[in-house]
């Protein structure tokens, strides 16, 4: 390991420390532990914080902000919390699989109330620690019970997908997804890669609002993908972190998931309520395996519990209670749908305004992908060099891959952002 300034300093510190019983015998067991790689997104935020430019913009944040750039607690969430407080609920351990009420509400939201899978009791659904935790349970389950220890991700995918699956010893492969030439979906590339996959492969799909690109297949493309993956006997694992948050409609955003169910796929599903209910830190999520029958679902459920117990025994209840309070009360649910549409609409409006402002600046580039893409993130198509320039000269902070978080854009800063983006790309 290279001897950096920091290391020399720490060695000096050690040498000058008076010998005590603690340091006299041997060096720390942890002395040879290397510093882990810095988190790219955290780095963006850290640099943003240090910048004194009053016009600075942080486009790295993966959490919704209102038009004043503030965190947003949904009104329906506040109402649900008031109801919960008045009920004076207990703090007893939840079952290993979490709150049954929450699990039912969550999977009904995803699959639709009338889903035959739910009526037949073919789903094994457990509460998970938000989306990450749900993926983690899923990957552990697959590592144990799925014959092929390989998972296929879209290229690119959410950065954390890789360590989650690698942690359980699975091999990670990628199928073509994002086309940098069009800033859109490489449908032909994806279909070809699906065709060439071994039969029975495990394929991870982003249900809506692909992270990080914002590029989603259209309904016809989803149908074609479903048909092809069915013929390949592939196992689809959907990651749905933005239901409702993407288009403003929970049903529209669940289109792909429900299509695959209708087409007879027995899917896996990870859900997160971090964004669509603004419950980020409460860690509300769910993991589901769709089985052939009720008996199979019961057996799978028993095995999933075996994986959860040595991870954290049983899940945190607060976020799950908020979710089920909202979803089980017609008025609150309706209010929530309005809240989530409000968030989606603001994002869509920022997309529209950013594109319009770029055109107003006189940019001759094709920026249609800004409004074609959907959800929290947008792959702008800017190069690392352009990104660096945008940061240095305009104090606009984003990741090197040109990804911007639409949540960081407000009506107050969108014109300035367009000015900067035009300046570095003309």
């Amino acid at each position, binding site marked *: 390991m290279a001897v950096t300034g920091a290391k020399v300093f720490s060695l000096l510190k050690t040498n000058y420390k008076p010998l005590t019983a603690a340091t006299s015998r041997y060096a720390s067991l*942890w002395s040879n532990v290397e510093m882990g790689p810095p988190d790219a997104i955290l780095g963006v935020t850290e640099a943003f914080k240090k910048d004194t430019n009053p016009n600075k913009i942080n486009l790295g944040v993966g959490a919704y902000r209102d038009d004043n750039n503030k*965190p947003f607690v949904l009104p329906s969430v506040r109402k649900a919390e008031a109801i919960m407080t008045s009920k004076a609920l207990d703090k007893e*351990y939840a079952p290993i699989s979490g709150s049954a009420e929450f699990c039912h509400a969550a999977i009904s939201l995803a699959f639709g109330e009338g889903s035959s899978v739910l009526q037949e009791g073919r789903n094994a659904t457990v509460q998970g620690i938000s989306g990450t935790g749900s993926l983690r349970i899923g990957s552990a389950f697959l590592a144990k019970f799925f014959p092929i220890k390989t998972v296929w991700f879209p290229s690119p995918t959410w950065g954390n997908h890789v360590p989650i699956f*690698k942690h359980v010893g699975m091999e990670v492969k990628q199928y073509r997804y994002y086309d940098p030439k069009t800033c859109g979906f490489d449908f032909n590339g994806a279909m070809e890669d699906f065709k060439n996959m071994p039969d029975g492969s495990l394929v991870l799909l982003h249900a809506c609002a692909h992270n990080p690109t914002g590029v989603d297949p259209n309904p016809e493309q989803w149908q074609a993908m479903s048909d092809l993956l069915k013929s390949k006997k592939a196992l689809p694992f959907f990651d749905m972190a933005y239901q409702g948050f993407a288009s403003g409609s929970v049903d529209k955003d669940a289109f792909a998931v429900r299509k695959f169910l209708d087409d007879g796929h027995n899917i896996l599903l990870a859900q997160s309520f971090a964004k669509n209910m603004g419950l980020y830190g409460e860690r509300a999520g769910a993991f589901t395996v769709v089985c052939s029958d009720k008996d199979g679902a019961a*057996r799978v459920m028993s095995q999933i519990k075996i994986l959860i117990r040595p991870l954290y025994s049983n899940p945190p209840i607060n*976020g799950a209670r908020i979710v089920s309070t909202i979803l089980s009360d017609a008025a609150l649910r309706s209010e929530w749908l309005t809240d989530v549409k409000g968030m989606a609409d603001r994002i869509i409006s920022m997309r529209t305004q950013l594109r319009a402002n770029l055109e107003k600046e006189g940019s001759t580039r094709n920026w249609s992908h800004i409004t074609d893409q959907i959800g929290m993130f947008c792959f702008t198509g800017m190069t690392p060099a352009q990104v660096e320039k945008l940061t240095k000269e305009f104090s606009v902070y984003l990741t090197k891959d040109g990804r911007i978080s639409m949540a960081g854009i407000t009506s107050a800063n969108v014109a300035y952002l367009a000015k900067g983006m035009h300046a570095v790309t003309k």
Partner: protein
Amino acid sequence: MAGRFSEVSQAAAIEVFAVVKAFNDDAHEKKVNLSIGAYRTDDSKPWVLPVVRETETAMAADTSLNHEYLPILGLESFSTAATKMVLGENSAVLKEGRATGIQTLSGTGALRVAADTLKHVLKYNSFYFSNPTWGNHKMIFEHAGFTETHQYRYWDAANRGLDINGMLEDLNAASANSVIILHACAHNPTGVDPTQEQWKQIADVIEAKSLFPIFDTAYQGFASGDLDKDAWAVRYFADRGFELMVTQSFAKNFGLYNERVGNLAVVVKDASVIPALRSQVTLLVRGSYSNPPNHGARVVSTVLNNPKLFEEWRTCIRTMSSRIQEMRAGLRERLEKLGTPGLWDHITSQIGMFSYSGLSAGQVKFIAEKYHIYMLSSGRINICGLTTKNIDYVAEAINDAVLNGPK
């Protein structure tokens, strides 16, 4: 059509949940649940601590609070307070900056992060747990990838106490860098803790053999009612210069079972290793659950960092621990009065929520069937399940089982 997971077999039920289910399904009016590990009031009800309700009400009214992500390693004000609570505010370790705290998913989550870290960062592979121990210890470490699983002798059935010689012998035979899971206080399931003198002997062996101690601390304050007393062993080891880990649960002492509030405190010899250590734990946590839940940690942090609320909380833990001590005394008294064969002083010499009654699996079954009183087949009883209303009935059942039940 057979599904791809049609070969998945039904997993064995975890005993404590199966027993609770049996209790819940039982309609008998005098049924008693002595199996699960949660506090109950004298009315057999769960108890949300008044100071917790008060704090939650204030939090709900505080519009400056939101639900944003916590840092990956958790709420710093919580971890700092939790680490200080177990090491003591006068700890030299704290003064020298040689401890770091990481918020986790209660005690289980802390143990899992600890196991993952010891396995993947330090490459340890051997671990020891007491015989008996909490059912989940073995699974946690094995799922984290440890392959050398060992037990050290602990429970002395004949004397219903600690088999200190067996324990020291087994630890003395351990290979260097073996991870030793110790219960800081209120051993689960036996309720038997080493004396201070015995802790010193244990420390001597652990030091001599270069073993790595990890203290499972699920009952600080809850055991004796005194936070400092219950942390004595941890502080002794820390002050003696050991590098160690402490896994803390706030499930019992704060009654926050389902909010999953825990802390992993790591004590090191050299403060400069802490940033690299934290960065590696960050990677493990990110790939597991990204960041911990906000609510429960915020409640605990608010209480621990506010002197008035902290005192209120100390009153709550004294309430819980003294009710338990009363029930222990009451059960022993009744068994001795009934003349139940055998020695029963272990019921009051043991500490914490649990007691290893000494009843056999057959006697446990006898009691469940005849009296509808539920305990684990190991004979473990949750003292919190006893109340002034059912204690006579339970004593009668135990007496009957010992006299007339199977051996």
